[in-house]
């Protein structure tokens, strides 16, 4: 018993150390964001005087709010688009039975093997030819169709008992009603999972928004942050850190709210 307590203690100490190590950049950022500029330049790790001056400045003198709104619009649009298109596509792969359904699905799934990096140049050319650069569609449209989302939802739809569909066939429900009234409400968990996942991925996206936006009009937070750092000669690290902490807040919120569902959704069907 005693020995067990000992090993437990060691394990916990190791875990805490690892957590500190992994979290240190974030913690340092948080610490810096609360320091006045002179303390930062003096190379301190912990603030002597707490001030929210950096945050005030971040909201007042930078484009932070503008970027946040852009990110929110883009992330929400991608999320809604993915939920809608993925669930409709998944429905088509599960409920109506047609010849070649399997083949279609495998063809569809096989596109997962083409890496995003390989699609960037053709996508960029398309967007440019459509004159969509620096518009929201440029940031949204390439991501609304999600193979992963379709796959996730298809697996979920397949688990719905077949009798439910048959019962509604006898009643005479249309596919549309069955989709809206039965399939979607019964797949809430998976829909929340996919929604959370797509929101977070879009929020944290860097490479594509960097290419597709050349000015501040639709620029998202991640790019905005990098911009801030490279624009000014004398970096106001406190302000940048305050911005970085601020843009992490929505991510954390979504994660906390969706976490329960996320875990449930991703492990669903694995056990039971």
């Amino acid at each position, binding site marked *: 018993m005693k020995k067990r307590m000992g090993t437990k203690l060691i394990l916990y100490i190791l875990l805490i150390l690892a957590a500190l190590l992994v979290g240190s950049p974030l913690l340092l950022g948080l610490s810096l964001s609360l320091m006045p500029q002179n303390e930062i330049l003096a190379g301190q790790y912990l603030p002597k005087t707490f001030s929210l001056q950096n945050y005030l400045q971040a909201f007042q003198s930078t484009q932070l709010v503008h970027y946040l709104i852009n990110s929110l619009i883009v992330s929400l649009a991608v999320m809604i688009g993915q939920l809608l298109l993925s669930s409709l596509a998944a429905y088509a792969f599960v409920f109506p039975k047609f010849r070649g359904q399997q083949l279609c699905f495998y063809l569809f799934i096989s596109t997962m093997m083409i890496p995003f990096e390989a699609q960037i140049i053709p996508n960029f050319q398309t967007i440019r030819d459509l004159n969509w650069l620096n518009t929201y569609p440029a940031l949204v449209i390439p991501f609304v169709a999600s193979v992963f989302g379709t796959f996730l939802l298809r697996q979920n739809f397949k688990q719905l008992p077949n009798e439910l569909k*048959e019962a509604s066939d006898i009643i005479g429900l249309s596919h549309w009603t069955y989709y809206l009234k039965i399939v979607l409400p019964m797949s809430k968990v998976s829909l929340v999972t996919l929604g959370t996942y797509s929101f977070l991925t879009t929020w944290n996206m860097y490479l594509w928004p960097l290419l597709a936006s050349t000015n501040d009009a639709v620029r998202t937070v991640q790019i905005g942050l990098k911009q801030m750092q490279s624009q000014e000669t004398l970096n106001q690290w406190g302000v940048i850190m305050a911005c970085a902490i601020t843009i992490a807040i929505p991510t954390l919120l979504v994660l906390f709210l969706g976490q329960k569902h996320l875990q449930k959704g991703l492990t669903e069907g694995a056990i039971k």
Partner: protein
Amino acid sequence: MTQIEMKAVSKTYNKKNTVLKGIDFSVEKGEFFILVGPSGCGKSTILRMIAGLEEISEGQLFIANRLANDLLPKERQISMVFQNYALYPHMTVKENVLFGIGHLKNLSKAEKEKRLAKALELVQLQEYLHRKPRELSGGQRQRVALARAIVSEAPICLMDEPLSNLDAKLRAQMRTEIRQLQQRLGLTLIYVTHDQVEAMTMGDRIMILNEGSVQQIGRPIDIYNHPANTFVASFIGSPQMNMIEAPIMDNDLKISTNASVQLPFSPEKSKYLVGVRPEKLKPQGETGDLILKVFINTVEQLGNETILGFQMRDQQWKAKWNGQWTVQPDERISVYLSPKDLYYFDVDSREQVVSSQEQWQRGGVTV
């Protein structure tokens, strides 16, 4: 009036796997018709073909004298109760029941409410209106499924083993309830089960299936008394019918070393399968009865009756005696049976062999 009719229907999967062949039967309006057979005999497939959930490979299906092979499920005017109830878990009892008629535009709201109230009253679920299926017991869920079928007011109702997920006591209760419901509403009910007790107690007529073909159709009691073949004989009745192969010697059928019986027909073969129901093996005999001297090997006391098991050559036989009998295993006792209670089956075709006189007496027995 004939409500449903199948003519030479067969079902083949992938053009080579035949699961049903040459199915012919008809169901009258207001009849309780039961499809019974062991698992894999194709009874559910027949039901699903009537529902339109399964394609008919060959043959014709008529619903209300109209060719229905290619009708959509919703055009067939049927309702269906599934084995696992197929309730929508995110909807309340009310929503589940109304779901069957909610989309019909030619029904007024008042009419829908009226039907809902009536259906819930019939299955005694008025108080559970706002519960979700997971908050109900198995029997209550079953009733919700019944209510959903009733509310549609379809003239034909199909049930696929609706009671198999319930415990024995509840099952007995629901059997009576379904039967009463069917009679009150005048429903044409087609009911699939593998349970011969359900088949015997509930149906106006039953159809026994095995390996994709019809074995016998008729009233339960007629089938019990006149099984068409050895399969029906052993499938209907519990404990099942005792059978043994017996050779013909000196024009008599020799059942055991010292029990022979005169055949009621002129034999064409050198041996026959002879069968007798367990309750016809009696503790006391009358004049003319055969006596079997046997060693008892199992005794089952059920309180109101005693089931005795013994070996007849290579076959285990059972005798069902009324009341309580104290018999020890290995005891040697005599059991009596009347020659008139014997059934004879052809050893090759497995069909029952009946004398021409008996056949004439029975008249219109459907085989």
